[in-house]
């Protein structure tokens, strides 16, 4: 599938996935977008030059993921010969840092070089940094390490005119990966406010405790009816609940393929409903009252589908 490089359609989003070799860029991509399990990623070899993947997301949006091989040979190339090709029209830069890396100075240097090119070719780009392989750091040290690293990177990126840097601690062995990618992808969705308000009205009609909207293939969270109550809410649910659901549902979806079919709906204890809302969205509904008639809830969801097309 080849596309002209000058396609300026707004629905094509170019994401650069960069970082030094072995930092886990291709593993992330494989887990989120190609249904690999964390264990399967051991088989991945080094990425040679740039691997492109085109992913349809939410139907009308195409994510163009440029997975840039991180060996120094290629890296040097990106910043010299290919710089205009690589850094043009970039919507998002996702820079991955390996927490185990011995040469942090060099990692940051590469990051600054990328920022420099971005400033020149795509000054509007959003920057995300991921501190990857967090599972290799002791639990009590994780927070401090993340804070120190983020402080340093924030300083660096401000110099290049990217003042609000967003960073996440990630690991392929827990839910943190989904959290980071959900936020990255959400930053690209234009009609977020519409989804939010639709979700609110659906919540009140169904008398639901919470509704979460997921993208169908990747199971990344798009939005939730309790978004703004997350911190000021009356009670505290598990803060990682979205990512956990992503994880559970994704595993289940892969399991369904063993029966040569794909997942459609799930109803648990008559209080949790998981159904498709459109060809590219799945809703996860938790009811307040498990005694609501199943027919009525399903009918309401059917009616709501029109709003989310």
């Amino acid at each position, binding site marked *: 599938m080849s596309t002209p490089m000058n396609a300026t359609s707004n629905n094509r989003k170019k994401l650069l996935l960069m970082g030094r070799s072995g930092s886990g860029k291709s593993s992330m991509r494989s887990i989120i977008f190609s249904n690999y399990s964390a*264990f399967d990623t051991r088989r991945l070899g080094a990425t040679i030059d740039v691997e492109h993947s085109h992913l349809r997301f939410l139907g009308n949006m195409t994510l163009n993921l440029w997975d840039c091989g991180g060996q120094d040979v290629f890296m040097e190339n990106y910043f010299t010969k290919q710089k205009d090709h690589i850094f043009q029209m970039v919507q998002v830069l996702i820079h991955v840092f390996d927490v185990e890396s011995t040469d942090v100075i060099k990692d940051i240097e590469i990051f600054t070089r990328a920022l420099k090119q971005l400033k020149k070719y795509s000054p509007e780009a959003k920057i995300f940094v991921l501190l990857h392989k967090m599972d290799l750091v002791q639990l009590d040290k994780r927070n401090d390490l993340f804070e120190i690293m983020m402080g340093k990177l924030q300083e660096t990126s401000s110099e290049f005119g990217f003042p609000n840097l967003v960073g996440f601690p990630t690991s392929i062995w827990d839910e943190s990966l989904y959290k980071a990618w959900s936020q990255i992808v959400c930053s690209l969705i234009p009609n977020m406010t519409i989804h939010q308000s639709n979700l609110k009205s659906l919540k009140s009609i169904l008398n639901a*405790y*919470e509704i979460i909207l997921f993208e169908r293939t990747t199971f990344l969270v798009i939005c939730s009816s309790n978004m703004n109550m997350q911190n000021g809410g009356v*009670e505290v*649910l*598990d803060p990682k*609940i979205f990512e*956990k*659901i992503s994880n*559970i*549902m994704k*595993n*289940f979806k892969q*399991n*369904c393929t*063993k*029966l*040569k*079919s*794909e*997942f*459609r*709906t*799930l*109803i*648990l*204890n*008559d*209080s*949790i409903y998981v159904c498709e809302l459109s060809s590219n969205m799945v809703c996860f509904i*938790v009811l*307040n*009252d*498990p005694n609501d008639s*199943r*027919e009525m809830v399903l009918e309401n969801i059917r009616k709501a589908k029109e709003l989310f097309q």
Partner: protein
Amino acid sequence: MQPLDTLYLESTSNPYLEHFSTLIDLAVMELPGQLNYFEPSYDSERLFKSVGALVYVIDSQDEYMNAITNLAMIMEYAYKVNPAINVEVLIHKVDGLSEDFKADAQREIMQRTGEELLELGLDGVQVSFYLTSIFDHSIYEAFSRIIQKLIPEISYLENMLDNLIQHSKIDKAFLFDINSKIYVSTDSNPVDIQTYEVCAEFVDVTIDLFDLYKTAGARNNSKAIKNKETTPELKNVAQLGNDLIIYLRQMIRGLALVAVIRPNGTDMESCLTVADYNVDIFKKGLEQIWKSSRVTPQEESINS
């Protein structure tokens, strides 16, 4: 435990007992490998008298000739003290072997074991062989079958499940132990490992999702719980693109019925209504069987 974590397990040096409570109470005893059973100090006679099944594990990726000789000696002793014992052999770690190699290994091990037993004059005893690995569901399958041989009511359970699936458009039904993912019974149709895996995973999905919102549910149901002092039974229904329905209902004593329903054109709601009604009756049946079953003295001696 995750399969990968077992790489770091230490060698077992003392007999280790693990209790299971499903439909029947089981105790699984892990014995250290380097034990000499024929040391007079070791109370092996009492031990072998009190067990229902002996599971012997052979490493398929290692030299297994010694293991087979050892197995024959153990079997000889076990049959002397307890002729009613079930001997089960797990040909283990087959995840590292190719398909052809698996079949070869199994054939060879079965043949050698037969020869060894013939020499000891023990030909004609029943030995079952299973190819297992901890990296897929084969080990659960094998243990399911081993445990089913020990359940005295197994034939009734199978008949009940057969009756249930005939009348509710069910392809396949399993009675799972929720905690271990071992099934204590299934209907008489052949078990397809894929279906079993999906059903076992479905138990996991149900428990995981239920746990996430348990706190929220408790808050909302606080009135309901005050009115009746029981937690509602767990039930979960999922429908797939080709209309197949995976259906889970909690039964007695930590068991769950998981079934795959094929609607054949009828709508989901009527399928579920019929299934629910039949499963309710099935559950009553289970409760009655449970009431009338008694713990046998044999099991009591294990648990004491």
